[in-house]
């Protein structure tokens, strides 16, 4: 990679933005929470806005098409060395997440970034 290292955070592919637009037009705003742990942990979970209660210590990693993307603060400490891109993958979600369209689910892709630029996310 050339140029200055990227900060942590999240961006999205056109497919992901398009899937979000479809979800929003069908049923209103959505939110994302980055999961961890067993089974389909490490996948981003998509919910209707307000479905999942955000805690005081959750970290807002960014917004995509006005939809917030959160991560647990402990998990953020582990993930802050990678920048995420929200994307869409084949197959229905295996857990409680909303689908990214028929037969599709949301995924995140990660690439190593500049973790020292992470302070901007803490304390929100």
């Amino acid at each position, binding site marked *: 990679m050339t140029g200055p290292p990227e900060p942590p955070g999240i961006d999205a592919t056109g497919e992901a933005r398009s899937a979000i637009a479809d979800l929003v037009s069908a049923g209103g705003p959505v939110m994302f929470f980055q*999961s961890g742990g067993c089974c389909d942990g490490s996948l981003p979970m998509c919910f209707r806005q307000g479905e999942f209660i955000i805690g005081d210590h959750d970290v807002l990693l960014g917004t995509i098409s006005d939809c917030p993307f959160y991560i647990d603060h402990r998990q953020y400490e582990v993930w802050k060395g990678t920048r995420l891109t929200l994307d869409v993958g084949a197959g229905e979600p295996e857990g409680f997440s909303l689908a990214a369209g028929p037969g599709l689910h949301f995924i995140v892709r990660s690439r190593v970034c500049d973790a020292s630029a992470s302070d901007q996310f803490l304390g929100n």
Partner: protein
Amino acid sequence: MTNLMVNDAAKVDAADNVKVFIAPGLEGSLVSLKARYENFIGGKWVPPVKGEYMDDVSPVDGKAFCQVARSTKEDVELALDAAHAARVAWGETSLTDRAKVLNMIADVLEANLTMLAVAESYENGKPVRETLAADLPLAIDHFRYFAGATRSLEGRTTEIDKDTVAFHFHEPLGVVGQIIPFNFPLLMAAWKIAPALAAGNCTVLKPASPTPWSILKFAELLDGIVPKGVINVVTGPGAEIGKALATSPRIAKIGFTGETTTGRLIMQYAAQNLIPSTVELGGKSPNIFFADVMNADDEFLDKAIEGLVLYAFNKGEVCTCPSRALIQESIYDKFMERCLARIAKITQGNPLDTSTMIGAQVSNQQLEKIESYVEIGKQEGAQVLIGGNVATVDETLADGYYFEPTVMKGHNKMRVFQEEIFGPVLAVTTFTDEAQALEIANDSLYGLGAGVWTRDGNLAYRMGRGIKAGRVWTNCYHLYPAGAAFGGYKISGIGRENHQMMLEHYSQTKNLLVSYSTKPLGFF
């Protein structure tokens, strides 16, 4: 898994009795297959209210092999109706008869062990040698354990004073909701169903979306054994029916195994109904090898080497997968050489072949996730010691979801050391002394399992007590006997399974406080 099971698995090879089971539904298969499966509600097969079905895909070849109900909240309501209709009678059934039902479930599972082992292997992609030797025997034993556990569980009586006695009874909660994962569909169903039923509850069970079918094969065997409505199985997407079940004001408890975000969501839903929940949410278990394991080249060293390679058990799709190996620096080169040689001998192939040691990941989603983690590991500077790629095992299975047994060397701050990959990917690093081993072991968000390998009993004890995890295997790994409590520290979850104490999780405590005195208190 247990010694008994390892020996059983070995017998298959020793007898040169390697064979390939015929896939379900094909001529000569042990497993019958219908084109379409309905929900199991009230002891009957009930079509989904909205008439929708979804494909069930086998990871063995990536092809859909049957359809199951794509249920909606209306179907969850039907299952809750059936469970509530059965609730009072089952709750009042004597312990003798409840235990008899659990033992009969165990017997019918045992009578159909090979058939279900083949079904489970085909459904999940795990090798049939594992389902024959571990998944099914453990599930069977689980029902027998809770048949005994519930009869031996005694209420307590306390003499408050000479004339006043406190009686404590266990009473059923009523109807419970249970949501299980895809990695051990039948065994996780057994872990959830057996204690719930033993404690006198009726259950509505939601299998994981990728693995709904083998549990329906189990349900096919229950006719005439389990009273109608005591066990109900509803299949479909988590966002629809998982949510409908977990949010229902008609359940008295929700049990869940899965990932952390859904775990939080489950607890949030339970809070809204003021009901209890138990959640098991995964881990990133350290497996720690001290230098003295190489003090002799003996059977114990061989066991320790296998102990490291157990990360490939069930293709790494285990909440307690020993996916972080911590090896004392002074033996690292020699020990890893032996381990890598063992890993290189892992036979990957058709899960229905009894000689196959590692099968297929459960879904394409999981396969892609594993690939992406190996890529992240490489970007972070981890070194791939073996594997690292999607595997093709056989032309006829080209669309199956196979990944090579993989080892990556790096350090504990890397994401591949901190996150549950749920695949056959081992992250390995070194430590210099006991203090550093403990520090690395506990430097994790999770605390479900851990392994400690040493010939020094005192060291093993100190490490076992020092590691913040619910289960520390000492000079063993991946044993899951009924009777040993299983559950997590830290964000790995809340509650314990696999033990008589589970009956407390599925019971209310009724206290009768009785005065045998005729004297008034004298206040009024």
